[in-house]
């Protein structure tokens, strides 16, 4: 996150004016005892972590005021501490340190705890300290403090309070929010480090304070020293004293003063303290009051809607759907998995840099968000943590656990620019997207299946949504596009979306100025789908941040249902609600709808109702493995409702399922129905049934099972051939038979069926090789047969025929028999279009392989293929190539010559058409265009070179001149004196 301004910088950017103000102030305050409070407050705001540092200081100020008789001593001690820490300060310094908690004393310990300012205990401590000081102002502060304390206990964030206290904390609402999980995950070590940092920071500040003091009040210091010298002693002094034993057993004698003296001293200090009091005391008092008021108003505000909510919910709006009524409106109300919520929110928060970012005017929006979500403290508390966690290295650890890529691109956008929520219906995906987007300060624009999603309309919607904002709407919040039910969108639309997302990157790469900037996606897009593996979503899935929804915990859902039931005064119990949740597959929507239905019916909901009713059931798609499991496993008895059709008037009883065949059959049929992919299911059963329990030792069961496999196959084949799906329902009964034959109570080991696919792939491969072989067969070798004959009869024997025994010697040294064999092999190979090619084997060495790969054809494990050694293959490969060339060369001109002659002699002895060959015609001189002037010559490579006769003569003349001269050179182009000569290819071979 280097590209961002760090927190301090950011703070400075945002609060520049305030800072300037603040910077002016300290100069005036410096001379005084508690001088740098406001400055430190500003600093503290920057820090966002050291609120109690301020607390300490402010308390300092207060204590200065509150106990004037000691204040001198306190500061003196501090100064001494700063001045000569190691110099073995006087006993008085020591005592004071212990008494008044200079940075090395107990307050330092509290300083350590500053990162945990949210801990209520500390808060309490502070409050009690505040209250115990016994000032007049305490009385007024008390209610507010108590409320604050209360809030602290209620997990409210103290920073909120401080913001109210110190006015100008405009929390970075749009900063990422911090996950408490991470907070917890933070190790002890990190805490320690933070604590140490804090201590050092405090100490530094303290030193600054003391420094300024020392600089300005050297005389005062001296006085103080004198005061100490006068009042404390190691030896028994001559003034009245109290003996105190120090921890190192040394005695210190503290002087008693008379009451008038004390009074005098007090008066002296309070004369100075008035100034300070007007500076800090009054201001602080005011702030406290304000804080109290704010807190008070908030608590009342919060409590009010609750009351009204209950009131409105209970009886009004009878026509409204409960699903709508009890829709979560705040983040805290969300039922879905916390991790999912948080990761999505975090992703959304990552957009803040781009969306809100430096744009300072976005404050309003934050206010709007705060105002909207302000009714609950929890929401704010989440937001407040936000400000802090960006600098937190703890997120790095989180990355590995989540699929979220926390990196951002150069523009500060998250790397994954789209979030894709996927999960079965009714879990609250849409609700989550809306809630979180609103929570994060966006205006949600939803595009769902009911909208026109043709590529054009889609394009328009997406572009408008990302590049414009509502003008008419009062709150100018940025848009967040929610593409609901995206799995139903046309493929082109999704492709456009993907392009749109990645185009930004592309344009940026080009960097064509403003125009390029224009197209960059600067708004988050959330897509929602049910089936993430929809083929149309494939391109999107690769670029998106995929958040898959785990099913909601049944108990958690039931709790919510209980709440709703309570509010709606529906009589029910937890057990039946759990049953309802389970029955609907934890579908929130369906549960609430069912409850409303029951409420409308009879204002009660019992377990019987749930079990007895078909409400809330839906076609759930079960995974393949789940179905196979159902087939190979006998279900354990479950709670179910025993209904007797004959005695329908009697109340039904809840009993355990009897594991009769009927029930099992129904279970299996249900499971098989829910999957529907019968072909794959069959294959899975087929590849797994032999590992299951065998019904009998005599294979009768296996035979029965296989008969059903055959039946299934036949039916499937007929269906696919004739597209006659009327017999489709029969397919499922095979599964019942297999279940009854092989199912056990034990957990079955089921592996995914791959053999069928492997078979298909391998046979395709084989077919390709075979087709290549077929194509290569020349017309002179048609006797080898065609199709299957070639494969079954010829290929196996061909391997033998092509494996002559050859010694590894040069061709010339082979015996006549070997020569003959070699000749034969080569001829066969050429006839069949085979050759050996050198390929690199998997082990890395080179082998000669037949091309097409004859060895792979009709190859069975354990049977030898071509037995030729490497050398022979190499030899044959060469010879085959030569033979190829030889055959490709035109046959000698001799046979064609007589034919040509005959043809010229007369048409009477005309050859059949197919025997005629073309005869080259000599090019006659008149046909040539520039025959007299040009001489057609060819160079070595057959290119025609033109030489005009005139130049020839000129050259001749030149050469004559050259020859006549005494010395002459002759330049020869090229490397040799090659002589052009006609050579036939057969002469070379």
């Amino acid at each position, binding site marked *: 996150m280097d590209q961002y301004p760090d927190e301090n910088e950011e703070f400075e950017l945002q609060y520049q004016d305030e800072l300037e103000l603040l910077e002016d102030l300290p100069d005036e305050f410096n001379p005084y005892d508690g001088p740098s409070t406001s400055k430190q407050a500003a600093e503290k705001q920057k820090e966002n972590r050291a609120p109690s540092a301020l607390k300490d200081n402010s308390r300092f100020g207060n204590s200065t005021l509150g106990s004037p008789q000691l204040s001198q001593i306190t500061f003196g001690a501090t100064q001494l501490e700063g001045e000569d820490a190691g110099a073995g300060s006087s006993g008085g310094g020591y005592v004071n340190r212990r008494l008044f908690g200079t940075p090395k004393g107990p307050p330092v310990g509290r300083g350590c705890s500053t990162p945990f300012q949210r801990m209520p205990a500390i808060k309490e401590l502070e409050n009690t300290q505040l209250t115990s000081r016994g000032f007049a102002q305490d009385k007024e502060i008390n209610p507010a403090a108590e409320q604050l304390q209360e809030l602290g206990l209620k997990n409210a964030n103290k920073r909120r309070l401080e913001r109210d206290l110190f006015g100008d904390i405009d929390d970075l609402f749009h900063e990422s929010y911090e996950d408490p999980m991470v907070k917890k995950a933070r190790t002890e070590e990190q805490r320690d480090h933070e604590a140490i940092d804090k201590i050092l920071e405090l100490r530094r500040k303290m030193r600054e304070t003391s420094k300024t003091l020392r600089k300005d009040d050297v005389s005062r210091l001296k006085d103080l020293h004198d005061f100490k010298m006068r009042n404390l002693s190691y030896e028994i002094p001559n003034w009245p004293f109290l003996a105190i034993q120090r921890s190192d057993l040394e005695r210190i004698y503290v002087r008693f003063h008379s009451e008038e003296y004390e009074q005098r001293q007090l008066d002296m200090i309070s004369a100075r303290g008035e100034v300070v009091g007007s500076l800090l005391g009054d201001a602080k008092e005011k702030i406290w009051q304000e804080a109290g008021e704010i807190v008070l108003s908030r608590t009342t505000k919060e409590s009010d809607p609750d009351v009204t909510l209950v009131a409105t919910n209970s009886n009004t709006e009878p026509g409204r759907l409960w699903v709508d009524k009890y829709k979560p409106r705040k983040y805290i109300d969300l039922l879905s998995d916390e991790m999912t919520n948080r990761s999505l929110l975090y992703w959304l928060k990552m957009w803040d840099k781009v969306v809100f970012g430096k744009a300072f005017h976005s404050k309003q929006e934050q206010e709007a968000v705060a105002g909207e979500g302000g009714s609950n403290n929890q929401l704010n508390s989440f937001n407040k943590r936000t400000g802090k966690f960006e600098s937190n290295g703890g997120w790095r650890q989180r990355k590995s656990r989540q699929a979220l890529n926390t990196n951002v691109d150069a523009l500060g956008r998250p790397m994954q620019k789209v979030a894709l929520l996927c999960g079965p219906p009714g879990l609250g995906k849409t609700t989550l997207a809306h809630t979180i987007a609103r929570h994060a300060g966006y205006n949600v624009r939803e595009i769902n299946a009911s909208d026109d999603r043709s590529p054009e309309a889609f394009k328009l919607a997406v572009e408008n949504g990302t590049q414009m904002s509502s003008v008419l709407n009062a709150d100018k919040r940025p848009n967040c596009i929610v593409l609901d039910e995206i799995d139903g969108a046309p493929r082109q639309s999704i492709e456009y979306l993907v392009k749109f997302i990645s185009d930004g990157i592309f344009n940026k790469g080009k960097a064509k100025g403003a125009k390029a900037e224009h197209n960059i996606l600067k708004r988050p897009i959330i897509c929602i789908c049910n089936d993430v593996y929809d083929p149309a979503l494939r391109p999107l899935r690769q670029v998106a941040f995929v958040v898959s929804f785990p099913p909601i915990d049944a108990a958690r859902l039931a709790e919510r249902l209980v709440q709703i039931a309570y509010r709606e005064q529906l009589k029910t119990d937890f057990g039946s609600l759990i049953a309802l949740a389970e029955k609907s597959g934890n579908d929130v929507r369906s549960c609430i709808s069912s409850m409303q239905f029951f409420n409308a019916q009879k204002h009660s909901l019992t377990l019987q109702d749930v079990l007895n009713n078909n409400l809330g059931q839906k076609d759930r798609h079960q995974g393949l493995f789940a179905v196979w499991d159902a087939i190979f496993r006998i279900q354990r008895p479950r709670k179910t409702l025993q209904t007797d059709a004959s005695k329908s008037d009697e109340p039904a009883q809840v009993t355990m399922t009897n594991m009769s065949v009927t029930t099992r059959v129904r279970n299996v049929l249900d499971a098989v129905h829910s999957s529907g992919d019968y072909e794959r299911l069959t294959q899975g059963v087929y590849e797994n049934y*032999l590992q299951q329990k*065998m019904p009998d*030792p*005599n*294979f*009768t069961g*296996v*035979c029965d099972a*296989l*008969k059903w496999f*055959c039946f*299934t*196959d036949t039916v*499937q*084949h*007929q269906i696919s051939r004739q597209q006659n799906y009327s017999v489709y329902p029969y397919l499922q009964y095979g599964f019942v038979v297999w279940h009854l034959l092989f199912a056990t109570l034990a957990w079955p080991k089921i592996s995914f069926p791959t*053999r*069928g696919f492997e*078979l298909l792939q391998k*046979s395709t491969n084989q*077919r390709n090789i*075979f*087709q290549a072989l*077929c*194509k290569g*067969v*020349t*017309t*002179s*070798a*048609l*006797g*080898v*047969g065609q*199709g*299957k*004959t070639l*494969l*079954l*009869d*010829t290929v*196996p*024997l061909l391997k*033998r*025929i092509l*494996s*002559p025994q050859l010694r590894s010697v040069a061709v010339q040294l082979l015996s006549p028999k070997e020569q003959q064999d070699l000749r*034969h092999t080569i*001829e*066969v190979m*050429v*006839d069949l279009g085979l050759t050996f090619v050198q390929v690199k084997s998997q082990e890395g060495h080179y082998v000669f392989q037949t091309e097409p790969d004859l060895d792979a*054809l*009709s*190859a*069975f494990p354990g*049977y030898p293929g071509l037995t030729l050694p490497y050398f022979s293959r190499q030899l044959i490969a060469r010879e085959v190539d030569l033979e190829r060339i030889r055959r490709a060369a035109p046959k000698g001109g001799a046979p064609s010559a007589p034919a040509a002659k005959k043809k010229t002699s007369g048409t009477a002895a005309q050859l*059949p*058409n*197919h025997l005629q060959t073309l005869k080259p015609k000599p090019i006659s001189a008149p046909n040539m265009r520039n025959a007299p002037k040009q001489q057609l010559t060819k160079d070595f490579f057959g290119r025609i070179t033109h030489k005009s006769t005139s130049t020839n003569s000129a050259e001749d003349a030149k050469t004559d001149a050259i020859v006549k001269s005494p010395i002459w050179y002759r330049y020869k182009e090229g490397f040799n004196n090659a002589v052009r000569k006609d050579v036939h290819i057969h002469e070379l071979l």
Partner: protein
Amino acid sequence: MALWVDKYRPRELSKLDFHKEQAENLRSLCKQSDFPHLMFYGPSGAGKKTRIMCLLREMYGAGVERLRSETMTFTTPSNRKIEVMTVSSNYHLEVNPSDAGMYDRTVVIDLIKQVAQTHQIEISGQREFKVIVISEGDELTKDAQHALRRTMEKYVATCRIIISVNSTSRIIPAIRSRCLGIRVAAPNETEIVSILQSTCKREGLALPVELAKRVVDKSERNLRRALLMLEAAKVAKAPFTANQEIPDLDWQVFLRETASQIISEQTPNKLEKIRERLYELLTQGVPPNLIFRGLVEQLVNKCDMSIKAKTLEFATEYEHRMQTGAKHIFHLEAFVAQFMNIYKKFLSELIMTDDF
């Protein structure tokens, strides 16, 4: 023409080695100006194609042997490109539509119709029709066959069709009735032996009669196979000896081993291993009916008399079912399991009777 099957293939009807009477008939058929569509049927390696080529030569002269092979590309209605190899001369076209698999109808419609529609360019001294040779005609789908039947009637003036099939049973009756069927039976043992010996003589080798007979046995009277086997045997060991090893077809050996494994053990584990082997055979392109046949032959040979009939009964049942389905492995395994079942029962009964 290096392989013996090609090298010593008769090129004229007069030089055929067996079914000479039939050859004579064919020759007289050619002498007439016209002849009907023909369908040569007979087992593989009996010389159907040889006879067809001889017949063509008889009709058109040596020019028919100047072959060229071409690859033609067709586009199916579903916009799929398929390639079909054709071998043709000026007078005839040989095509194997089963190369196109299920799209053979396109081949029949496009290619054959197109060729049939065109006339011979040069009629002088020639026949006025061309010949289309369809090899492996029994692999044609029903659709393709139906597409063919009208073509055969409509363009009878310009083209004759010669179909070469293994069995007429898979040819629809409509085509069967349009063709003159010519049965080419596999040569008998003595014929093959004499052919093998004459071949060896021309190659300058001496072939012991015993070896020739064994080759005949092993080749199942398939002349092509016999010649290839002999040639392979020659490569392995040059001067023939009577008890020389004759190379086997790998897949047959594999099948035989599979059968003996079935006999040896009847457990689910074994069944799974057998399944692997069957998968292997299917991947290597061995047609399932051949696998079935090989298995049944071996099993029946090896099992007791009392369960032979039952085995055969089940074999027919399952093989028939296999024809109606698409996943051959199910049916093959079903048969194997069924055999294991009856064999196991038989064994246990045997033990029982032994005990008493």
